């Protein structure tokens, strides 16, 4: 009897299955018999509108610690408002016929900062003209979602993909709500009037040929759960993931493609926060991750935000294809911890582009 068959029989009678069914948080990662094929695109360009979600790590750490630690509800933490930035990316897809479509991934934290970077990159005008007509909220964390008003004030009826596991207050913010009595918490005076697509686990949301969203019910800090991940299949190259924070883990995303997508073994690259060491601390498991990603033979890794400079630096030293940034971020009105520490340029910073 094979080990797996033996275990199936044993576990089927055990309470372990009861746990997996009842809690509903365990991975259902078993391979599908029919692999998804959502088409191909010609190329993909990602522009980093802002990856500096906050500007000083110890300040944010102290705010969270004072409120009770990383398991506290994100709407109950009083944040130092001078420290707030935001995360957002402009995702430009070139279809096989050459037609280009733009998507906005995330909308940042501080309205002041997001208004500044939107204006700097012309995102405000793209929203007003509906050159961008879709907003993908990766997850409802402070730095990806709280500046919702900065997007909605330019286009209240924008189509939004929103994680189904988002907090009740995050859903309320969509309709217009004010939580700003707590410093650093959001207000939105422009209710959303457009189509709202609430994403669920185990479903693939096709944006266009070669581009899709997959929702992962993954744990995150500050009581946030779940993340929408953008998958692209680039002709003759392979799969690229674009993430806000990548809370499910980059290896989970790669393995999801391998198990569920046609030609899923072709991993070309990734962009975004990889949520490995957002506060620049280290754990031996992060060495495992370098080893794991290296074995996947990716061609381009564009990372920033919550990846942790320390991981990107070590990964680059170990031979991973980390795409270096430029110094455009230094021309912005504020710079973050990494720029101030004059670290090596292994991050794609504010204003940088990556093309797949």
């Amino acid at each position, binding site marked *: 009897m094979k080990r797996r068959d033996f275990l199936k029989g044993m576990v089927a009678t055990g309470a372990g299955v009861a746990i997996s069914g009842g809690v509903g948080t365990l991975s259902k990662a078993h391979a599908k018999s029919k692999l998804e094929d959502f088409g191909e695109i010609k190329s993909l360009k990602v522009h980093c509108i802002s990856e500096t979600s906050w500007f000083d790590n110890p300040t944010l750490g102290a705010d969270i610690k004072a409120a009770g630690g990383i*398991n506290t509800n994100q709407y109950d933490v009083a944040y130092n408002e001078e420290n707030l930035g935001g995360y957002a990316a402009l995702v430009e897809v070139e279809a096989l016929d050459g037609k280009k479509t733009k998507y906005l991934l995330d909308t940042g934290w501080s309205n002041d900062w997001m208004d500044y970077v939107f204006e700097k990159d012309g995102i405000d005008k793209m929203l007003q003209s509906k050159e961008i007509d879709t907003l993908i909220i990766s997850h409802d964390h402070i730095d990806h979602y709280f500046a919702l008003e900065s997007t909605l004030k330019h286009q209240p009826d924008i189509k939004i993909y929103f994680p189904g596991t988002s907090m009740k207050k995050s859903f309320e913010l969509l309709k217009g709500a004010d939580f700003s009595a707590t410093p650093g918490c959001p207000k939105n005076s422009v209710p959303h009037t457009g189509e709202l697509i609430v994403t669920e686990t185990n479903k693939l949301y096709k944006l266009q040929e070669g581009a899709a969203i997959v929702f992962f019910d993954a744990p995150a800090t500050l009581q946030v759960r779940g993340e929408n991940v953008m998958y692209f299949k680039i002709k003759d190259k392979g799969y690229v993931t674009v993430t806000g924070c990548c809370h499910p883990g980059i290896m989970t995303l790669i393995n999801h493609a391998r198990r569920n997508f046609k030609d899923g073994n072709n991993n070309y690259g990734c962009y975004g926060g990889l949520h490995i060491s957002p506060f620049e601390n280290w754990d031996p498991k992060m060495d495992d991750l370098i080893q794991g990603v290296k074995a996947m033979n990716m061609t381009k890794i564009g990372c920033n935000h919550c990846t942790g400079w320390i991981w990107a630096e070590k990964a680059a030293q170990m031979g991973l294809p980390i795409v270096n940034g430029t110094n455009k971020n230094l021309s912005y009105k504020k710079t973050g911890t990494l720029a101030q520490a004059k670290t090596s340029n292994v991050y794609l910073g504010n204003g940088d582009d990556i093309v797949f």
Partner: protein
Amino acid sequence: MSSNNATENWIATRELSPRWSVGLSGLANLVVHVIAVFVIWWIFFSNAGIFKLYTPLLGFSLVIWTLLIILWQAELFDFWPFSRGFIRDGNPLAKGAALTGVTIAVYLILIIGLVFFFLGKYGVTYFNWNSLMLYGEFGQDPTSTRETASWAMLSLSVPFFLISTWFMFGVGKDLFPELNQPRRGIAMWGLIAVISIILYLVFFHPHIGSMFYPQQIYTAVPPWWQGIAQTNSAEFSLGILFCSVVGIFYAFHLWDGWPFTIVKKQPWRFIFFAVVSLVFGYIIFRLQLFIFDYLWYEAYIGGQNEANFGWRYSHTVTMANFVLVIAIIQNTFFGQAYTRFPGILRGIIKTVVAIVVGMLFAWAYYRFGPALLGVTQGVSHPSENAAAFLIMVINLLLIQDFFMDGWPGYKLKR
């Protein structure tokens, strides 16, 4: 107060009888215990409570060391410095308060005083979060340093736990029969400490040396177990060693100490105890990993959450503790109800009950824990470790049993 010179430990010789029927007495104890668990959890640990010590590693390191100290008090020092008269005749509540006071005092002196303040300030940076922030640079912020120092203290407790159980139960008074308390306790503790510190340096120090950038290769070798465990994390050692400890307590609470009672003569008893506990621990560890493979597919190098090798190794301890908590409750609160069954049947029934109810307990914890305890939702959440809660529960069970003679449902037989 005086030292006691009895030939047997108090816990081994005392007899408890239920105040009412076994069922009612056990139920009364369970109600008091559950109330105590919620009160203590919400005051000290919960994220929505007052002290918020469940970070989770800070709380975990606290409860694991206090559990160890409780065991030392009862099994190693035989309740010294309290007289046998006080232990025998004292009011259970007064005894509970006094003995728990000693537990807290020892914790403050040994862990906060010696390890955190003294060693952390003058010897080993990573035992003190203030030192990490003072000497560390990038990434050594208030949150991460607290977790690093707590993980170090937690890691230190694991070999102490294993070696303590070997010496407390596999050696007992055989090694220093001529010594009275506290000399015997101190001698045994010294021996335990020497062996535990060596094991800590081999099994855990390389992990902590790899928690910084650049890797601290001149003071700690890179994790040598990577090729065996598929991870650099010491959760591999933690899983096997801790499951070995849990296995010993399974034997005591489910099978009247079998198989550890088979060999009587020293030094074979000690060797048998150590080897069997490691083998048993490895079986508990490996069997769970097979089940996890079935539930969550195979783990892979660099995987996150339930796909991570390290998390799975650590989770074997958590799941084993869900069963252990039920095994202890069953044995201490309702154990006398099983005396009507012959030995083997009794062991089988108790084991089945512990596993089935333990799994239901696990389901209830993950399903209702966020609402009832303020813990974070999700089995593999990075900020969640149910073992912290479970060890706190075991702390309170032992306080109720060892320090309070099973009050209110049970009393000492006169």
